[in-house]
């Protein structure tokens, strides 16, 4: 359940930004959670409900972008969608990969009153 730590991280980060902008609550929050980021969405959902209680995010509308995994094969330069970390390159079967996207874990933006 590291998802709870992640939710608490989001609450801290968003609270700091809202306070810096003179807001007392947050209306909307936009998150980016990559498909390879190690977040289990069911657990995240559960942790979210608990974590935002009595915080500025309690009534915020949440938008989540799930960025798909994408990798570059270091051996043959093929760029391909990466579903799992153990997928091999569809062109040369290589496993030496550089992950281009899918690891994101970000607060992108907030809408404040």
């Amino acid at each position, binding site marked *: *359940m*590291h998802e709870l*730590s*992640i939710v608490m*991280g*989001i609450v*801290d*980060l*968003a*609270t*700091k*930004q*809202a*306070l*810096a*902008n003179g*807001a007392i609550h947050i*209306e909307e929050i936009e998150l980016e959670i990559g498909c390879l*980021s*190690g977040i289990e969405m069911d657990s995240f959902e559960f942790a979210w409900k608990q974590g935002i209680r009595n915080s500025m995010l309690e009534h915020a509308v949440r938008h989540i972008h799930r960025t798909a995994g994408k990798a570059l094969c270091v051996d043959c330069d093929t760029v391909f969608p990466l579903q*799992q*970390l*153990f997928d*091999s390159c569809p062109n040369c079967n290589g*496993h*030496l990969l550089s992950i281009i996207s899918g690891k994101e*874990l*970000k*607060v*992108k*933006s*907030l*809408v*404040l*009153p």
Partner: protein
Amino acid sequence: MCATCGCGPTDHHHSHDHGHSLGNEQNTGKKIVTVEQDILQENNLLAQRNRGFFEGRNILSLNLVSSPGSGKTTLLERTLTDLKGQLEFAVIEGDQQTANDADRINATGTKVTQINTGKGCHLDAHMVLHAVQGMKLKPDSVLFIENVGNLVCPAMFDLGESERVVVISVTEGDDKPLKYPDMFHSSTLCIINKIDLLPYVNFKVEKAKEYARKINPNLEIIELSCTSGAGLETWYDWLKSKVLLPV
């Protein structure tokens, strides 16, 4: 909030507000604030702070991760005893409850600090920072950080370690790397432990290695047994090669 010193997210002495926000007004009178910040940023900053501290003192810090019962503490006991006098050691023990592991390490005569995470399923850089503050670590030493036994959650949290060592034992399934790819992806060394039990279990070492290297082709792998002593020399050589002792 920090459980150790009670400092909050806004007033902490080692937090940084980077202020990347770009405020602009919408027609509705609402304000959109662009944040674009990593959720793990706070942890990652503290991890880098730890890393700088370790590098400045030439301390080799190793984050030991595994599922519960893979033999991390036994491996440490054996290592600390066998290499006594050759290398300087200190240990941070992470467990949800009890100081049992710290007691076992303490019995070897090594300096040890226990972190109890309570309900927490992993160590984070903040906990390590506070543990290290109370330890007076010696320069040119080795610090073992034994993480909470869990192959999932600790993967996401950089502690500032020099190397991450994942331990699996042959009493587990040889497909562990495929089931918990994040941990194998972020580790630099994999120890396959309890190889003295291989005749009695259905664990295929070559298969486990193949799976692990599918996820991380650069992963070094050492097979050993703390009971029979097989492979320990390779592990000790690896350790010694990583400690850059001043001439």
